């Protein structure tokens, strides 16, 4: 479960891929399953890179909102996948 207190905002504006993904990855490392990360990006590449990174690493994209030149991608931290 998560609530707004568990949401970490990652400001990845002006950063070019893969930097937004790296920032999200570093934020996720410090969080428990169920917590959320909201990444604010300007590189449209993040719209595909963050979801792919989330998928292969077992996290879930909750929402993607694009406004003007900004993209806000919200991700929920998944359980550590077993080997």
């Amino acid at each position: 479960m998560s609530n707004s207190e568990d949401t970490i905002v990652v400001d990845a504006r002006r950063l070019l891929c893969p930097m937004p993904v790296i920032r999200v990855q570093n934020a996720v490392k410090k969080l428990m399953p169920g917590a959320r990360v909201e990444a604010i990006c300007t590189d449209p590449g993040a719209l595909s890179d963050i979801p792919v990174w989330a998928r292969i690493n077992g996290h879930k994209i909750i929402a993607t909102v694009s406004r003007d030149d900004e993209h806000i991608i919200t991700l929920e931290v998944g359980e550590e996948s077993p080997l």
Partner: protein
Amino acid sequence: MTKQYKAAALISGGLDSMLAARAMQEQGIYVEGLNFFTGFCVEGHTHAIRKKDQAKPKRNNALWVAEQLGMKLHFVDVVEEYKEVLFNPKHGYGANLNPCLDCKIFMVEKALEWIKEHDFDFIITGEVIGQRPKSQRKETMPVIARESGAEGLLLRPLCGKNLPATTPETEGWIDRAGLFDFSGRTRKPQMALAKQYGFEEYAQPAGGCCFLTDAPYAVKLADLWKSRGEKAYELDDIMLLKVGRHLRPKPEFKIIISREEGEGKFLQGYKKQYISLKTTSHAGPLALLDGRVTPEDLAFAARIVARYSQGRNADQVELEIREKDGTTQTISVAPMAVHEIRKEWLL
């Protein structure tokens, strides 16, 4: 219960590392990918800046490979640590400013740290003997293994049969018979193996995995170091080298002029770090000034920027000059004539 052995694969996004990782999965090894971000990586970047390129979004090939192989991928930010590799490469540079051999040693060394920290057993790379003239030769393979400290824990599945047996082979974690003996510059064996594995699509190798192999980029980086009197850079510096037209009319400063809308927008983000110039009487580019400038230099730079605006043939062009703190002044200048712009200014 038999132990599940685990390998970390250096994933560049190209075909070779993809095949190497897959070859290990075929042997029942659990593989996760590592992708090192030095700041110079070709993946991403310019396509995200130029407006015309944004229409065809480019995927990150390392992520794509990981998804195809059903494995996790970890980006490792080595921007700061990589500086030492680039400034003082023990084995020298390649054709441009690419310290490939030192770079490989460094990445394997980082991978070794990673496997120790994450309790993985060995490292794999997609290296092939003879594939790259300087860094992928029979003589350099043991150098990388030795100087990185990985020694027998470094396995190259695509050419492993041509190399001495590594720990995963001698310990029976994998079967040497399942390795390959690829060598030389031909891509045919890789393509055949890709077909065998059912990979219909993969990224084509483009000569190098980073901008340091690119001659015009290396010229700009060398100029940056020369102008600063030392080999030094920050991430923003090396990003800016990928954008716009760079002119150094005087040793003290450089002008970065956007070539199209997307670049102009990108440069906007640097207005607090650099003095910026923008034509106001005519449509034109956004320009940044990097270095120390006198008021005379400002007028001089404004004339150059005016040259690249729609007002290039006008008698006077008006520009707004914005200081880093946001204060602005307007200046009116005669655009520089084309013959006044010296070839040697262009980087």
